């Protein structure tokens, strides 16, 4: 309505369209667990254990998995809210925080995050406009300009500034608060936005509104999304690529239609078939998996999924499967011995031997 037309800021596209916006290599984070005072050996939670992936420019990578799979830790490591134990990141062709690469402060501005809890992510003592203007003010934008920008952003996310700018978070509904969080993220003109369960806490009818808003903003501002969610429907809808995580590792990744159409990892298949059917005549009759996801302290040896996997075989205990490309689409990768004819798993696909 009265929002100023958004002029795409100079996006500093350094690497060109073929260069992925973000490349993450071998990211690791182990949290020490405090044992008893007499325990000698320290235990570690293997929250993120060697995660590598890349996000092409202007695309959405959906990260799915159950609680404890490390998807939120991955997000925090990328956002540098937490220090990784090891691993490297390349942002648009330049190493982050490496010699000669882009500096952390600049990197942070080009990457913003929207959190799940819309209430906890807003300072209860600041008005909506103050919250949005805070970041730019920190970076030296004059107060009047920051305020005007905040009003424009509010209008863009569908909150009339004259009504909402001077309200406090507790006076807004969940959906409205999440719009504010999105507006705050946009205040920096970021290139990558991490959405950590950003629509999970919203009511269904409101969730659809926010998803639409996210899609519009992405097209309008050439954003790239990292969309973390446990909701497979939503990930299917919004993502171009999907990465499935289990106990701190990537088990499968690929284009969305391949993951949802020809899932290659038993865990992905189980996850997909655990989704309620929506058809009262064809209710789910049996559960694809038994038990809960195991504790990420001391994960099983070899393949971490093996003790819940219907196809487990001694080889799965002995060696951990690598993430390898699948026939048909090199972008589709899975970490399962079943897909590797050289693995020695009796059920491995024979036709790939060609």
């Amino acid at each position, binding site marked *: 309505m009265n929002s100023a037309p958004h002029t795409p800021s100079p996006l500093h596209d350094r690497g060109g369209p073929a260069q992925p916006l973000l490349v993450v290599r071998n990211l690791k984070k182990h949290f020490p667990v405090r044992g008893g005072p007499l325990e000698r050996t320290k235990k570690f939670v293997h929250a993120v254990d060697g995660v590598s992936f890349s996000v092409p420019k202007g695309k959405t990578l959906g990260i799915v998995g*159950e*609680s404890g799979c490390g998807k939120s830790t991955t997000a925090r490591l990328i956002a540098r809210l937490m220090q990784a134990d090891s691993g490297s990141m390349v942002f648009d062709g330049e190493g982050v925080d490496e010699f000669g690469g882009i500096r952390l402060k600049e990197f942070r501005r080009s990457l913003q995050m929207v959190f799940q809890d819309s209430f906890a992510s807003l300072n209860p003592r600041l008005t909506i406009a103050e919250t949005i203007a805070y970041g730019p003010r920190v970076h030296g934008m004059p107060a009047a300009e920051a305020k005007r920008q905040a009003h424009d952003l509010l209008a863009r996310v569908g909150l009339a500034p004259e009504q909402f700018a001077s309200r406090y978070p507790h006076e807004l*509904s*969940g*959906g*409205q608060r999440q719009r504010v969080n999105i507006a705050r993220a946009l205040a920096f003109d970021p290139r990558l936005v991490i959405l950590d369960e950003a629509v999970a806490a919203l*009511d*269904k*009818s*409101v*969730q*659809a*509104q926010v*998803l*639409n808003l996210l*899609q*519009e903003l992405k097209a309008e501002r050439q954003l790239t999304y990292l969309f973390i969610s*446990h909701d*497979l*429907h*939503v990930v*299917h*809808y919004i993502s171009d690529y999907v990465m499935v995580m289990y106990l701190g590792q990537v088990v499968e990744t690929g284009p*969305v239609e391949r993951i*949802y159409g020809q899932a290659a990892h038993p865990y992905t298949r*189980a*996850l997909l078939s*655990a*989704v*309620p*059917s*929506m*058809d*009262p*005549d064809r*209710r*789910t*009759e*049996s*559960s*694809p*998996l*038994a*038990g*809960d*996801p195991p*504790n990420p302290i001391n994960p099983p040896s070899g393949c971490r999924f093996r003790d819940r996997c219907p196809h487990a075989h001694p080889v799965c205990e002995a060696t951990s499967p690598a993430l390898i490309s699948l026939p048909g689409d090199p972008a589709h990768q899975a970490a399962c011995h079943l897909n590797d004819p050289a693995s020695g798993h009796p059920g491995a696909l024979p036709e790939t031997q060609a």
Partner: protein
Amino acid sequence: MTAPLVSLQNLSVQFCGNRKASALNAVNIELGAGEVLGLLGESGSGKSVTLRTLLRLHPERSTKIQGKIEVDGHDVLALKGRALDLYRGGTVSMVFQEPGLAFDPVYTIGQQITEAIRAHGAVGEAAARAQALHMLERVQIPQARRRFDAYPHELSGGMRQRAMIALALACQPKLLLADEPTTALDATVQIQVLLLLRELQRETGMSVIFVTHDIGAAVEVADRIAVMYAGRIVEQATVGDIVRTPRHPYTVGLLAATVGAEHRGQPLQAVPGAPPDLAALPPGCSFAPRCAHASERCRREVPPLESKGGHAVACWHPAQPVAEAA
């Protein structure tokens, strides 16, 4: 036909705090023995309030309840003292969303279930323990004997929810109230708990009221679904009818907003706006401000819930079922 197990007649609940909020407005629900009703709605729709009112869990001083609740022949709103205690947990029991909060952290799972059994019947300690162990086995907790002596925090989320169900079913209630029992669980665990609930319901023949915001979960367990909005039931029908031929614009919107593969690449049909403020409900249909088909009449008069062939809808301009429209 026999009398229904549960009958709510014109039930209204108001909370009188700083502001008066009408959480329930003239709700009518009937539930037969052995029937599973899904109460579907978003936050603030009144679905949880309905459950809590059924158990009389609201503080009496600040809550105004009108109407009538009958469960298994008891006039619930008139129950007092020991009769109320026996009703809670005996006739009706509840499974909560957060099993971690519903258990007392300082007693073992087994102790708590044993305690619940003994509170409701003249059973000896040993018999009660045996029965409690049997309950844990029935909810398919592996190594039940070991888990019997475990403290709540030692169990995973899914196991805790199973134990919660065991606790709720320990006294063989005729009615189980389930308040978003699977919302906090992971997808692969959620489906296990849904299947378990369905199986236990079939075995025991109890009635279940299953509150959820997730249509998918409701479809998996319910026979009938009642859709709630702003403290009113706006539509009620069998699961099949709700999913295939929804008639209330809100239900239609809710189903359209449930994203799936077929929506990829196009904007979702979102219901605009947000649920109304319960302290200031509009005079007419509470969905009218968000409804594309709203007319003058919708803004003036509250539409009654009218039933036709088992499919009830409260709307002045309901969507026509495909068959009739053709």
